[in-house]
Structure formats: C-alpha cells, structure tokens
C-alpha cells in the first residue's frame, strides 16, 4: 500500500481512478484547456466583431478577398446562383473530370460533394460509388434551397478545382483529402493540426466522426502527436502508417497564407483551413470564425498556454508585421 502512495507522489500527473470517466475542472485548468464558454466569452466575442462574420461565412467573398491578396485558392469553375442555372450544369461540368461542389455558406464540410472522375456517364466519388447527373443536380438544388447553409438561408453552389493533395498527405489519409487547420489569435499562429480521414469517418475530416487529428509543431511543420476519438495513437487505424514525424510540405508558405488570411479578414480569433496541392502547393480553402477546440487534443497542449502569451505579446508589441508574428510564434511555441 505504502508503495503505491509513494509512486503517486513521485509522479504528479498520475492516472487517477476518475480519469476513465472525467477530468476535474481543476485539472483541465491546470493544463490550460479552453472550453467552449471560455472560447466564446474571452476570445470570440471581444475579437471577432459580428459584421466581419459575413466575410468568412460566404466562401465566395472569402475567395475574392484572398485572390486580391494574392493568395492561391482552388480555381472556381462556376457558380450556380439559381435553379435556372442548374440547366447549364451539365455543359459546365462536361469539360471537367474532377471537381468539387460546395455551398458558399456551408460550414464544417456540410454539403461538399467531391467528384474524382467520370465513367459511363456516371460521376465517381472518391469512395468509388457512382453518382448520376440527376443526383448531382438534386444536390445542387438542395444547396440552393439553403439545406446546408447556416440558418437555412438561400445559398449559391460553388464548383471548383478538386485539390490533388501532395503525396505525403494522401498517404496518411484513408480516401478523402486531409486538410491543415491553423488557429490564430491577433495574427499569431497559435496551434496547427492535420485532419486525416479514416474508413470510419467516410472520407470526411470531422474529428467527432472518427477522423484523425494530428498535431503539427508550429516551428518545424512536423507532426508530433495524433488522436483518434480523443485518444492518442501513433499509427493510422486503417493503413497502419506511422503518423508522427511527417514533414508538412511548404510549411513556411502555409504560415504566411494563414497570417495573411487574418490580415485580410480582420478577425482576431480565427481558424484557417488549407490544403496542399501536389502541383500548386498550399491553397487556402476556408476561414472559420469559430474554430473548434479539438485542436488542443491533437496537440496535447491546452490552448490557453498559447493564447495567453499571444495576448501579452499583442498588448506589449502591437502592430507587428507578418514575419515578426511568425517568428514570435515559432520561437515561443516550437518544440525541440
């Protein structure tokens, strides 16, 4: 008995019996974990004025802004604005073998239809299943009716370039394209993760649907840690590939794109989603004004540990430029 007591003393973060079910608020606070209430009250509300949300809630506007800033975004093939336009859908798509249809106001990957190719007049999804022209048209009219948009308001459908992810990224994803999420405060990159699909998540990159969250070191752009359903893993559950130590291609460019996104939107606290195309390189996919909290699980670091130094830095050295911000983040949050 006395032995176990001693060992508990020796290791301060000893697994307690209740850790199977919960963590106490005290423990979470000690690790700097940010909850939804704190994210909203302390970081979203004061830093993200309501009027700026429209810039990022509509992907058309975000893309336009990004192009003005010289950022690379997936090429837009066409925009379907009304049910009448759906008649032209066929001719619009005839030239393309691979494309993505997404709602301009969708969030969290809702309503995104990825087509990888054509075969016998059918469209082929990444999973290999077939989609008829009728079904594609139906999907578009659902988007137009606002089925996937925030608040159910009428929407427009975007048809754009299907990103061909860099080889190193497709390897660690089971179907579906992995994307990189960066969370920023006042333009300082705070935390990054790679979201990779699994068989369970069905090609989607949503962590709560079983996708992998892989933490990325801000300095090196190398993956450091991975979680599946909140639990640390080291290998992909489907492909068995090693997930730790993978170098993101063009990491410095990725950081620059993210910081530029912050500058162009003016949002204080935001998440930037990017994909790395094997030919074009990093592409900005979307900007999220309400980034989730799973990123801290993927990195094994409480967000507060990084948000607080940035808050301090921002008040002490306001108006730093892009290089200075990236330099600060790399220096402060980089791992050895």
């Amino acid at each position, binding site marked *: 008995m006395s032995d176990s007591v001693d060992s508990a003393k020796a290791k301060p*973060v000893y697994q307690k019996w209740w*850790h*199977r*079910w*919960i*963590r*106490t*608020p005290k423990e*979470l*606070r000690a*690790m700097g*974990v940010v*909850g*939804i*209430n*704190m994210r909203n*009250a*302390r970081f979203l509300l004061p830093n993200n004025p309501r009027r700026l949300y429209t810039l990022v809630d509509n992907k058309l506007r975000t893309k336009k802004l990004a192009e003005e800033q010289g950022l690379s975004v997936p090429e837009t093939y066409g925009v379907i604005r009304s049910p009448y336009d759906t008649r032209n859908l066929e001719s619009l798509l005839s030239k393309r073998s691979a494309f993505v249809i997404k709602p301009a106001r969708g969030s969290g990957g*809702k*309503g995104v239809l990825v087509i990888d190719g054509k075969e016998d007049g059918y469209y082929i999804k990444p999973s290999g299943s077939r989609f008829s022209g*009728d*079904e594609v048209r*139906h999907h578009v*009219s*659902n988007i137009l*009716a*606002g*089925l*996937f948009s925030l608040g159910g308001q009428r929407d427009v459908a975007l048809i754009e370039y299907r990103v061909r992810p860099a080889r190193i990224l497709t390897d660690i994803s089971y179907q579906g394209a992995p994307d990189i999420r960066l969370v920023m405060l006042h333009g300082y990159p705070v935390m990054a993760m790679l979201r990779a699909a699994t068989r369970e998540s069905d090609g989607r990159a*949503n962590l*709560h*649907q079983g996708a992998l969250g892989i933490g990325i070191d801000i300095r090196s752009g190398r993956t*450091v*840690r991975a979680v599946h359903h*909140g*639990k*640390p893993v080291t290998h992909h559950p489907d492909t068995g590939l090693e997930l730790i130590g993978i170098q993101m291609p063009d990491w410095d460019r990725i950081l620059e794109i993210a910081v530029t996104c912050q500058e162009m939107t003016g949002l204080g606290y935001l998440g930037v989603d990017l994909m790395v195309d094997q030919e074009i390189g990093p592409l900005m996919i979307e900007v999220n004004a309400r980034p989730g909290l799973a990123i*801290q*699980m993927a990195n*094994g*670091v*409480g967000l507060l540990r990084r948000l607080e130094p940035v808050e301090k830095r921002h008040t002490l050295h306001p108006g730093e430029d892009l290089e200075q911000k990236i330099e600060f983040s790399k220096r402060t949050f980089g791992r050895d």
Partner: protein
Amino acid sequence: MSSRWKLVTAVLMLVLLGGGLAFYKSTKLGVPFWEGQRVDEWLVEARVSFLAVGKPVKARLSLPANGLDESAGQEAGSLGYHYHVDHDRGESTAIWSSEMRENGQALYFRVRFPLGSESGGGPIPPTGSIPVAEAPGLSGSVGEAARNIVARSKAISSDADSLFVTFFRQIENAAPSQEMVLINRAYEKEYHDDAPIKIGIDLLALAGVPARVAYGVKLDDRERETAQGPLPLVEYFDGANWKVRDPLAPTDVLDGSKVFVWHRGGGPLLDVTGGENSRVSFTVVKDRIPLARLTDLQNSPILVSTILGLPASERAVFRYIVLIPLGAFVVVLMRNIVGIPTLGTFMPVLLALALLEMPVGPGLVMFAILVAAGLWCRFLLSRLNLLVVPRVAACVVIVTLLMMYMTVLSHRIGVGIAVEIMLFPMIIIAWTIERMSLIWEEEGKRSAITQVGGSVLVAVLAYSFMCVSQIRYWAFYFPETLLILLAGILIIGRYTGYRISELFRFRSFTED
C-alpha cells in the same frame, strides 16, 4: 474590466427591482409569498333563533356597517325566507320575512373580514343633530347617590373620555363605595347582568355625556365550537364623535384583533315580530381567504398589479406565457453549464410547453412514434429527390395524417389520451423530423439521435421545472421574480468555466 462592473450593476439592479417588488407585494399588499400560505380572515356567523308562534314572521338584525363594504363578503343563509338588506343613514339591517311559521327558527348571517381589520368601534361623527344627553329619571336615595358620584367624578375629570374611565372604574371596583353598592342593588333588580352597563350609561347621561349600548363579538378562535352571546359595549359621545369602548377595559381603545363591533347606533340589535324567545348568538372562525378574492391588486399601480390587474379570463392566457422564460432558463443552464446538445436552441421549450398539456409518459411515447414514423417517411421521400420546401411540406402532411390515424386507432383501443396529443405543435414535429434526417445524413445517426435525445431530455427537465407548483405560483403571482431569473441568465452568459460535458470530452487529455 468595465463590462464586468456593468454586468454586476445590471444584475444587482434586476435582483433589487424584482426582489423589492415581490417584497412590497407580499408584505404591503398581502399577497402570500409561498403557495398555499394564504391570508387569514375572520368568519363571524350570527345565528338568530326564535320560536315562531304561527303568525307572519319578520326578523330584523342590525348589521355591522362600519368598515365593511359589500365586497368584504357577507352572506345570509335562511331557507324559505324573503331576505333583503335595508340601508338607512349608514346603518344596515338584515330583514327576513316569511308567512306563517311555527316552531324553532334559525336565520344566519355571515360576515368575513381580513385579520387585522379595524374593530369598527372607532370615532364616527353623529348623523343629524348633535346628540344631547337625556337625564335618567332617578329619584330618591339612588338618585342622590348617583348625583354624588357624578359630582365627585366631574371634579377630577373634565372630558367625556376621562368621565367614562372614572365611572366604569368605580362600577367594576372590587371594593365599591357605599353609593355604588346602593345603585347597583337597585339596577340589578331590573337589569340583572346588564346592570353595570346601564349604571354607566345613566351616570354618563347624568354628567351630560350621551351614551348608549353597543354590541360586539369577541374574536377568539379558541371558542370556535361554542356560540357566544353579543358582547355588550358602551357607545358614548365625546362632543364631536361617537366612540365605542369596552366597559371592562375602559382605558383602552378597542383592539381590532380581539373585538369586532357588530352593532352601534343605539337601536335594537335584534327585533323579531311573530316569534318568542328570540336571541342572537355568534360563532367566530378563523378562515382562509382564497387568492382569487384578493382583489386589492387590481387597483394597484401597473408595475405591481401586472397579471392580476387583468380580468380573470385574460389572465389564463398568461398561465403559459410566464412559463416560457422558465423553460428558456433551463435551456441556457443545460446548454451552457451542462453542455447537452440540442436540436435548435429553443425547440426544447416548445416541446416542454406541449408536454404541459398532456400526460408526460404517453406524450413522450407518442412523440417518439411520430418522429420515428415521420423519419421513415422522410427517407422514402428523399428517394424522390424533392426540393427542400416541398419536402418539409410533405412531411407536415404526413405527420398530420399520422396524428389523425393514431388518435383514431387509440380511440378504438380505448386509450383516450391520444386525443390530447393533437396539441403537439405539428410544425415542431415536422421540423424536428427534417432537421433530424439532415443530421442523420450529414453527421451520422449517432449524432442525430444524441441531439434529439438531448432535446427531449432538456424538454423533460424544463417541463419538470415548469411543473413545480411553487415556481409556477411565483411566475404567475410574482412575475417580477422573472427579473431575478433574468439576472441569473445574465450571470450564466458570462460563465467562462468548463461545461460538464467537457469534463468527459477532455477526459483523455494529456500533456506531452
């Protein structure tokens, strides 16, 4: 941190305003703060009994006039008698009349008045001319003795009040003077038990103070089973007003919590023609006032009276409206503190309101069946590739038919409750089905079931909260307490701690 102070100020102001109004209402206006705790009132019942002698009967009972208006609650109980109340110069008389009657008769008159009312013995100005004392025709040694007492008393006391005190002190004195013994002996022959009062009145008259008999009722709940006779009191004129005092406690003003003056003005308390042996007795009971009778609030300032200022029929509308904030509060609590996912923010409140109208268990079963059946139809419809709005409309039609069919079916089986399920707001169900099927497709069935389950759970919690009768009572009779609820919501709005669900979510969180 100025916004923090703003919040603290707003919360404090809301709590003070809400609490203050509620406090004012409960202490000053007498609206009980706790449900079931109601205001007490006295119920005094006068019972007139006599022996009818086979002639037309007419009974007149003088009624308490002072401080009692019609709304204070009077009722007469008397089978087969013609009854009316006669008002004459501020004095009211109940008059019962009937054709031939025989044997014992009993007539009742009930008066209710709230605890702590005036005794009814306070000073009132005389009606008509200023009354003048009529000297009693006392002669011989009794008259001599009386005049001696009056002369002595007048030497030490000047006004009517002090004369009243002096006389009744001497009358009730355990060791009376020789003159008083003489007078007493003479009066007792004639008036028996009423002798002391008669002596006092005659002595006052001799001293130039008009005085007469009044009758009161002892307000003593302990004697509720036994009837009491009228309590004789003395009413005298102090030069400006008539006042009633108890000769047994001449120095005190009548205490409204102990004595209620039933009759004053000098006329007869009871007058029965066509009957013999007439007498009146009183029964006193402490009773409860039903809240609905608390009419004071109707005339209060608009801020205080609120719902109670409305006619009863319009109040009913608010029965449910005041519950909506309670439901909203539960939703805020469950979402921001506990972290239960729900389908839409305030859908649980609407569901809870619907549950209030029906038995909960069967209501929830019905809801589950309707949603499940609707969901199945919705998936059938999705094969038709319909546009969104027509699809929701189709859903509404299907749900309507389902509801009708289930009602008919359960009626056949003999389960009556299904009829009440009709009150389930259809749009809520159709909308739930639509949202649920979307989440089902987009995020998987687990997510869909979690969210609908969460909504139902929150709805049931909100429902149980709304069902606590004390809370409903506060919301309805003290709507200003909703300001305190608002303060609570404001505080939760600034809560930045972890949600309980996050303690589970981050349970495997480890630092590297």
